[in-house]
């Protein structure tokens, strides 16, 4: 039997020490009529060799970037991951450790998370960061909850219609049953109109949630929108693309109160949508209302600098039903990946990744839009690394043709429900270009689509 140690002789010795005569007798407290008196009906056990063959077969039924160029976006991106990220994340000292509750046995994790928090603050220009949440979508709902606590306004939040549609769905799932009105500002041309936002806000609104660059890849008037939020005493919550901050102004610079993001781009593979990384940072004055674990610096008994889980009284294991969130676990190992990634790319590298993605995306947009029947859906909008094209023959036609040529584009906008968006969105397809894409690939796609 794999992963078990005790020999039958040892088992007998142990049973004797316990004072029972069989393994069966250990379960005496489970009433007989509740026992499962048959083997579980699950597939038979495999040895490591068999398992590897089996999983390889399953993997072969998928078509991955190995055989297709990935230009997919929509909140998950194919950025390059340096080997050193895997090297650190594969260390058993990190991935087989638990939450650092015993500080003396966990300084490695604690200092790494403290540095992760520091790196996120440097990236975003925000005062404090937690040690991570689940992913980008629930970070929005957690931010909304936090804004409600900070402002003491529990009945209303306003979100831009240009937010990732799945983020909007998550917020609705989390908030609507609490009788909190979720107002979505219409977005029918790739960006919201600040005047519409102003009209949607009032002095009972806890927060305004902005995604910048937004789901369509385009840039919002982030600073102006932040000011509108503040005009109504609401918090400005900004969902950003961490890579974009290599060249774009940082949320902390334009007055965001809470800055959140999907952090997958920072060194985590796509792995079919998770586990990813919720980034969550805010102004220092709100720190005791924050969700999630926080690592703090302190000194030990001998005055030596060290790190601990801090402000735990906010959390569910102490505050229970009054906790700032029900979240217990975080994304520790993914946060470690992000810390290593940000350390490696550093000040200059993050700028280069951002600029390469931006330049190549603009080249791709220009080339694709010259193909007959393919247009940029929002030709007048500035974008970062992702844009929407529409195809006169329909989105499915475009996707299929691209796939046949060895390219994955998307997601197609028809996957999503846009409650307050234009009907024309249904023909759109997102295209995301990272620093990994080459001119040769882009040209090859264009040639194939022209044919």
């Amino acid at each position, binding site marked *: 039997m794999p*992963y078990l140690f005790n020999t039958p002789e*040892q088992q007998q010795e*142990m049973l004797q*020490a316990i004072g029972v005569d069989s*393994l069966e007798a250990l379960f005496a*407290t489970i009433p007989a009529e*509740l026992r499962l008196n048959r083997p*579980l009906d699950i597939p038979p*056990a495999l040895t490591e060799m068999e398992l590897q063959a089996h*999983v390889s077969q*399953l993997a072969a039924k*998928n*078509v991955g*970037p190995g055989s297709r160029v*990935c230009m997919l976006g929509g909140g998950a991106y194919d950025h390059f991951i*340096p080997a050193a990220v895997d090297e650190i994340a*594969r260390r058993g000292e990190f991935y087989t450790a638990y*939450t650092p509750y*015993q500080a003396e046995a966990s*300084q490695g994790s604690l200092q790494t998370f403290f540095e992760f928090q*520091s790196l996120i603050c440097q990236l975003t220009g925000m005062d404090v*960061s937690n*040690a991570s949440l*689940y*992913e980008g*979508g*629930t970070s929005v709902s957690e931010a909304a909850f936090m804004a409600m606590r900070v402002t003491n306004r529990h009945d209303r939040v306003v979100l831009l219609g240009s937010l990732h549609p*799945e983020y909007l769905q998550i917020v609705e*799932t989390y908030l609507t049953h609490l009788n909190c009105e979720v107002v979505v500002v219409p977005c029918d041309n790739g960006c919201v109109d600040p005047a519409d936002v102003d009209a949607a806000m009032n002095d009972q609104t806890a927060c305004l949630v902005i995604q910048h660059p937004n789901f369509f890849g385009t840039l919002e008037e982030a600073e102006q929108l932040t000011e509108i939020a503040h005009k109504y005493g609401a918090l400005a919550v900004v969902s950003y693309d961490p890579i974009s*901050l*290599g*060249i*774009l*102004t940082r949320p902390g610079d334009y007055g965001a109160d809470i800055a959140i993001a999907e952090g997958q781009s920072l060194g985590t593979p*796509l792995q*079919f*949508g*998770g*586990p990813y990384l919720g980034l969550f940072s805010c102004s220092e004055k709100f720190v005791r209302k924050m969700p999630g674990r926080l690592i703090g*610096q302190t*000194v*030990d*008994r001998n005055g030596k600098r060290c790190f601990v889980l*801090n*402000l735990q009284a906010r959390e569910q294991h102490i505050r*229970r039903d009054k906790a700032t*969130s029900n*979240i*217990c*676990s975080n*994304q520790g190992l993914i946060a470690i990946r992000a810390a290593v990634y940000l*350390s490696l790319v*550093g*000040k*200059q590298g*993050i700028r280069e*990744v951002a600029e390469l993605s931006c*330049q190549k995306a603009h080249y791709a947009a220009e080339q694709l839009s010259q193909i007959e029947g393919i247009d940029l859906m929002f030709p007048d909008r500035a974008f*970062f690394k992702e844009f929407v094209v529409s195809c006169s023959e329909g989105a499915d036609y475009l996707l299929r043709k691209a796939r046949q040529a060895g390219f994955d584009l998307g997601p197609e906008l028809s996957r999503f429900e846009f409650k307050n968006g234009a009907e024309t969105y249904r023909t759109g397809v997102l295209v995301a270009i990272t*620093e990994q894409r080459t001119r040769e690939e882009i040209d090859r796609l264009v040639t194939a689509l022209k044919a």
Partner: protein
Amino acid sequence: MRNQLATELLFSLSQPGRRGALYPAADVPVKPLEELIPKSALATEPTGLPEVTESDVIRHFVNLSTLNMCVDTHFYPLGSCTMKYNPKRHERLASLPGIVDLHPYQNPSDLQGMFELLYETQEMLAEISGLPAVSLQPAAGAQGEFTALLTAKAYFEDRGEKRTKVLFPNSAHGTNPASAAIAGFDCVQLASSKAGLVDLEDLKAHLDDQTAVFMVTNPNTLGLFEKDIKQIAQMVHDAGGLVYIDGANMNAILGITRPGDFGGDMMHYNVHKTFTGPHGAGGPGSGPIAVRDFLAEFLPGPVIKRNETASADEDRYVLEMPAKSIGRVRTFYGNIGILVRGYLYLRTLGAKGLKAVSENAVLNANYLKAILKDVLPVPNGDLCMHEFVASASKIKSQNGITAMDIAKRLLDFGFHAPTVYFPLVVPEAIMVEPTETESKETLDAFAEALRTILKEDPAFLHLAPHSTNICRPDEVVAARNPILQCCEPQ
């Protein structure tokens, strides 16, 4: 010999101009950024990220990693956390191309292998729980609880019932009340009986037509099986409520008894615990839920279905949104990387292996409890399940040694500490969960260390640990004036 520079902060290694990752020059025509992006949206200053080399990064984080205790290096009997061995094959296989590199928005026809894997995972989780409908979405146990509570809420609303209360015993994990509160329920905490089980009288007194859900961990957080669970479930059902099983302690009952068979209507798994996720220094977890058939249409979506009548050019596995779904609780489909590892684990063990996991987990816990009973009393229960909760209360009143002192001193002996001060219902609680992946020799050595510690000078123990690189951090200082990052705000 430990590297004395190991705990320098990464930022202090930074030197202008150092690079850890280089990128090629653009191969497309480059335009001035101001032509692509409005000037107002462009940063005027670079970020404050550090400038270090790859070898700086590797040495820094490798050295830091050595300051951790972990399952690969130490016995880690942290109660309620199931710190079992994390098989290395999982890391290799979960990283195979065609698994690790799939984008969530790929064409479904190109994902049939992944869908098959996830569908089979759903099926196995349904069989192990005795609850037929599964959602893989929840990112962790706490989100599983929240998701199931919302599912229950939708079910009641669909029936035209408005039920407002969630009940749970005082030994519950903190996530239970926290999840109930976020799901918009009123929380009602119940007493535990003298035996450390659900107090049936108190439960009865609080059940009414406002009761939506009774949440219970079984085996409970004291490591005891709720022997009256069938009756408890009947009482809750008679009142029109649903029973939620917190599956944190599933490691004790795999293939032995099933939540669906003992009256549970909904449950979550902690794949990172029971199915060896791994724990990743605090996450990611994965908290899929399983529910009764009448709740299936309310589950969050999408779920994966198998089309038994698919023709050759149709997809066999498809994504489907349940008819009256509560919606989405997260982006994409779930913490797939962890679910893949769970799948690999289940396929490695099979039915016989899973049952042996629980048998040996329970054997190890009872053995350790038995050989320690003369020095470390366990207030509740005779036979425990996969863990037991001892109390240092008597020891503390005799010579001042606390649960914390014992926990800290164990580190010096090369053992990670058990969970202490939880559950809240046991004073000076020491919660020990050895798991099945430890040998009798390890358990004997651990017991010996505890015996030695309990004979040591209390004053010496108050200052423990003595061998770690730091000792007893000042948490009061940390909390009064939080320092949460190493750089001045800019």
